[in-house]
């Protein structure tokens, strides 16, 4: 790939998704985009760059962007935020009461493990939530992973990563060697395609936001912008969870870390509310 094509594709992907591609990722670009070249009958990356600028380039740009996302995920990934969520939910439910459903958002949900993990916790805590309902939204920029997340079908390998056996037998059914999430859990979640760089206001207000292992791929201004947009959608007593390698420090002062917690944040100036 010529430096020119690389620069063009990297700029396109960054403007669409926020993903930053470093020059040394040229090889990764070539392997991930190879199938697209083949499918489109393009000779090389120069031809791809050209096609991206031509008519129909928009749809192709979407495919290129999706192909460059990293979709690694697992159930109950990094444990800690889910432990915190367990402690948080009873208080939140009590504050909302039976009339107002809790709204939880898995903001870069990939194949859905995060959203399903949240649903399992809600199912487990249901007796302590006093009839408070909960809606979970999972969103991702990639249509392919959103489709997979909706199906809720996982491989033997995937259901062993992070998922205790007792939860596997409680919430999954076995179908032709794959593991299918049971209907009651699936009904708690809606999966939609959504770009974190787009306007987030139509998604509404959330009590809990999981935005993990996606900001690491963005540059600082994009991280700041996404964090501030999410802060605006977070309830005054709500909590935002970031990934293990992510922080708000130096990016925004609209979010502050919960005392004594790693990776859990609330809106600034709301100290009295977040228990």
């Amino acid at each position, binding site marked *: 790939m010529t430096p020119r094509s690389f620069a063009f594709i990297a700029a396109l992907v960054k403007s669409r998704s926020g993903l930053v591609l470093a020059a040394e990722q040229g090889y990764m670009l070539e392997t991930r985009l190879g199938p697209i070249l083949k499918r489109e009958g393009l000779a090389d990356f120069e031809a791809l760059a050209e096609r991206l600028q031509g008519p129909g380039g928009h749809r192709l740009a979407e495919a290129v962007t999706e192909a460059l996302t990293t979709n690694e995920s697992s159930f109950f990934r990094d*444990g*800690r935020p889910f432990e915190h969520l367990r402690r948080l939910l009873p208080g939140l439910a009590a504050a909302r009461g039976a009339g107002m459903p809790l709204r939880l958002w898995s903001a870069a949900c990939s194949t859905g493990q995060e959203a399903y993990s949240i649903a399992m916790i809600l199912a487990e805590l249901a007796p302590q939530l006093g009839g408070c309902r909960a809606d979970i939204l999972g969103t991702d920029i990639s249509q392919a992973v959103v489709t997979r997340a909706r199906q809720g079908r996982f491989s*033997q390998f995937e259901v*062993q990563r*992070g998922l*205790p*056996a007792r939860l*596997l*037998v409680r919430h999954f059914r076995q179908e032709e060697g794959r593991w299918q999430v049971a209907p009651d859990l699936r009904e708690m979640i809606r999966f939609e395609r959504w770009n974190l760089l787009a306007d987030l206001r139509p998604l509404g207000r959330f009590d809990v936001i999981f935005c993990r292992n996606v900001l690491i791929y963005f540059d600082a201004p994009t991280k700041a912008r996404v964090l501030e947009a999410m802060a605006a959608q977070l309830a005054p007593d709500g909590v935002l969870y970031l990934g293990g390698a992510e922080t708000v420090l130096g990016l925004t002062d609209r979010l502050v870390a919960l005392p004594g917690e790693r990776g859990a944040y609330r809106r600034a100036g709301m100290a009295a509310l977040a228990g």
Partner: protein
Amino acid sequence: MTAPAGQGTCLVVDDSRVVRKAARRILEGLGFQVREAGDGAEALAACRAEMPRAVLLDRNMPVMDGIAFLRAARAEFGPDRPVVVLCTTEAAMERIVEALEAGAQEYVMKPFDAALLQDKLIQAGLLPDPAA
């Protein structure tokens, strides 16, 4: 990964020496002291001689199979000791339910690798969660 510290003893029960050896390598890398048994009867004797902290237990074995060992161990030593992780090619839902009802703490479907086994040992409470 953090340097493995003493995680106690894990008894590896499998009729295949190759599998025992592979499991031993992984478990030692995670800080366990490893003992081996070739079937359930040997495993039961090993527990009576000296109770291991954990048992990594194959299902299908001659003489006494994994489930028979598990039931005998639970009857004799109670529900918590030793912590038992089934490790088997049997991946049918009923098999997993049966093992959990018989008192297994966790269940590994083969094939497995070091990362998966480590993950399951964390879920069984045998290893600290690195993220915690």
